[in-house]
């Protein structure tokens, strides 16, 4: 491919990842066109983008998942390239193809590479051919409920049902008995249909004390796939990651090397270009290839922190046909980085989503702290989309210091207007099993299956609260001041 400078990129996404892409573009002198839904005008990305184009109503199927609307928006905005972020259409080969057909550069792997690796069934077939270890399962085309239940029995319980086209925990359920299998498979199929537009699912043996370890790989314009090392994401609730770190505290240098080589091998054999992640399960010293995510990951910042790269910039450079990494100068991870996903949810009610208008939001700066957020004071968190409102990332020399720092940073952070999982995150970070680094994907289920104990206010907190309540109660005098400073009056006085 001939190097071609991109001058305007359309962003087919929302929230913090849209902001992340805009920031990389700003740095590279590239203009942005945010393709947004009707309800996403009050977001940080909307305020930051060079141009904004509304592509449809709030439901994702009519906006963020609508291929034609995104293509039309990108063309109307005069963009040369489209960045899909993560989630939504980021792993949709038809979207990548539609971009190409419309003369737009899709910032990501080719439709062919996405079809090979992004489709979990095809990916497993390739892994098998390459002799890479896989978890036993069923990836057949027969999607009849009866047949799926039969296959689940063959694999043996517990097993797991997953959306063939997806990620992020949607359309994913653990089946523990034959009795509950039918209902759960159907539920997974509905979630898969709603989140990814395809109800296809597959089954897999459920490893009960495995760690989730993944490798960031990057195929740059030179054609080589580079190993950017591992992340551990074992802290998951309902298969949704909550805390991620780089690099994993559990791998020996030999295993790390073997897994990294396996990751690069499968990507290279698919002709992979761009940022990608090869996910593994790791149990008792053995690793099993799980799937490949053919996109940028939510947790990409922890890799950026320890390896010293800018993955979004690297994606754009690759789309422009420029090589990014130098094989003669191998990357070596340094220190430790942790990311916490901040969800708008009530930790005292078992994590039910918390929606509403954001009040004051504060992310205090400090050495080794990084915040990725998509919403600011006055923005509304709705129930239409993912509840993740921000990511908090820290870096320090060692894992224990990074954990200490993260706890401090979470305590310093302020979000008013909606509940967040901050108290829950602090509990997890303080748990001995997390501190030891031995946690498995069942960590949350084992130690945090119950909602957090409702906060009991200390005497001092109560005193403060009462004082605050007194001050914030509108007095007659205050009401008068408000009417006197009405913009209509002061405006005319000013003339």
């Amino acid at each position, binding site marked *: 491919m001939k190097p071609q400078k991109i001058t305007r990129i359309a962003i087919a996404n929302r929230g913090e990842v849209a902001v992340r892409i805009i920031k990389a573009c700003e740095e590279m002198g590239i203009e942005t066109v945010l393709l947004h839904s009707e309800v996403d005008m009050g977001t940080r990305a909307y305020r930051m983008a060079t141009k904004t184009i509304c592509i449809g109503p709030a439901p*994702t199927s009519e906006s963020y998942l609508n291929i034609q609307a995104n293509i039309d928006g990108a063309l109307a905005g005069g963009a040369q390239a489209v960045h899909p972020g993560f989630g939504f259409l980021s792993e949709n080969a038809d979207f990548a193809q539609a971009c190409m057909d419309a003369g737009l550069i899709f910032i990501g792997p080719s439709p062919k590479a996405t079809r090979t690796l992004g489709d979990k069934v095809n990916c497993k077939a390739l892994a098998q051919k390459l002799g890479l270890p896989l978890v036993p399962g069923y990836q057949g085309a027969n999607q009849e409920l009866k047949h799926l239940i039969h296959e689940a029995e063959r694999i043996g319980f517990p097993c797991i049902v997953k959306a063939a086209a997806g990620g992020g*925990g*949607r359309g994913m359920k653990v089946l523990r008995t034959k009795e509950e299998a039918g*209902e759960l498979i159907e*539920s997974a199929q*509905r*979630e898969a249909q*709603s*989140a990814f537009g395809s109800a296809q699912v597959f089954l897999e043996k459920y490893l009960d004390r495995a760690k989730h370890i993944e490798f960031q790989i990057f195929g740059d314009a030179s054609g080589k796939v580079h190993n950017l090392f591992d992340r551990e994401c074992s802290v998951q609730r*309902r298969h*949704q990651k909550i805390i991620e770190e780089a690099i994993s505290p559990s791998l020996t240098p030999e295993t790390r090397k073997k897994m990294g080589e396996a990751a690069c091998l499968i990507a290279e054999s698919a002709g992979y270009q761009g940022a990608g992640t090869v996910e593994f399960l790791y149990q008792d010293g053995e690793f099993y290839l799980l799937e490949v995510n053919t996109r940028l990951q939510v947790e990409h910042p922890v890799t950026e922190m320890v390896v010293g790269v800018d993955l979004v910039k690297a994606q754009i450079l690759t789309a422009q046909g420029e090589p990014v990494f130098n094989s003669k100068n191998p990357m070596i991870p340094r220190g430790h980085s942790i990311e916490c996903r901040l969800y708008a949810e009530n930790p005292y*009610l078992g994590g*039910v*989503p*918390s*929606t*509403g*208008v*954001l*009040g*004051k939001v*504060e992310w205090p700066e400090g050495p080794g702290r990084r915040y990725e957020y998509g919403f600011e004071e006055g923005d509304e968190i709705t*129930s*239409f*989309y*993912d*509840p993740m409102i921000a990511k908090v990332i820290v870096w320090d020399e060692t894992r224990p210091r990074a954990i200490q720092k993260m706890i401090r940073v979470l*305590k*310093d952070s*302020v*979000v*008013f*207007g909606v509940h*967040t999982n*901050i*108290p829950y995150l602090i509990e997890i970070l303080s748990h001995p099993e997390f501190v030891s680094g031995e946690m498995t994907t069942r960590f949350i289920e084992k130690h945090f299956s119950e909602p957090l104990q409702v*906060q009991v*206010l200390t005497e001092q*907190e109560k*005193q*403060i*609260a*009462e*004082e*605050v*309540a007194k*001050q*914030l109660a509108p007095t007659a005098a205050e009401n008068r001041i408000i009417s006197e400073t009405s913009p209509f009056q002061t405006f005319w006085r000013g003339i």
Partner: protein
Amino acid sequence: MITQVTINGKTIPVLAQKVKGQIWIHFNGRTFQYEDESKKKFGSQSSQTGHAGDILAPMPGKVTKILKQAGDSVSKGEAVIVMEAMKMEYTLKSDGDGVIQKIGCKLGEQVSLGKVLAHIDPKKEGQA
């Protein structure tokens, strides 16, 4: 917005704000809400129309599956309604044994927080 309060002559830095009528406070690494005890009695909690055993929407979202009909009996832990919010499915189960008196929602309906989705008549002691 408040950035400090004075208690017993001592000035303490806090962050506090009223958002949509609700007071939020951040102090010493914790965020909490303040509820006025005197107002609590008349708060929405007690005016909830749900009875013991009823299934309420735990969040705003869409009803994606109704597994039981009026007249069906349910046992503790049995799934009655499936909701979708923020792209995740939540299965709402019965708290105890009983009989569905009425389903309070339609398939595909967007429901608000706290809506009674199913009225359940709890089974009385000694009943068959």
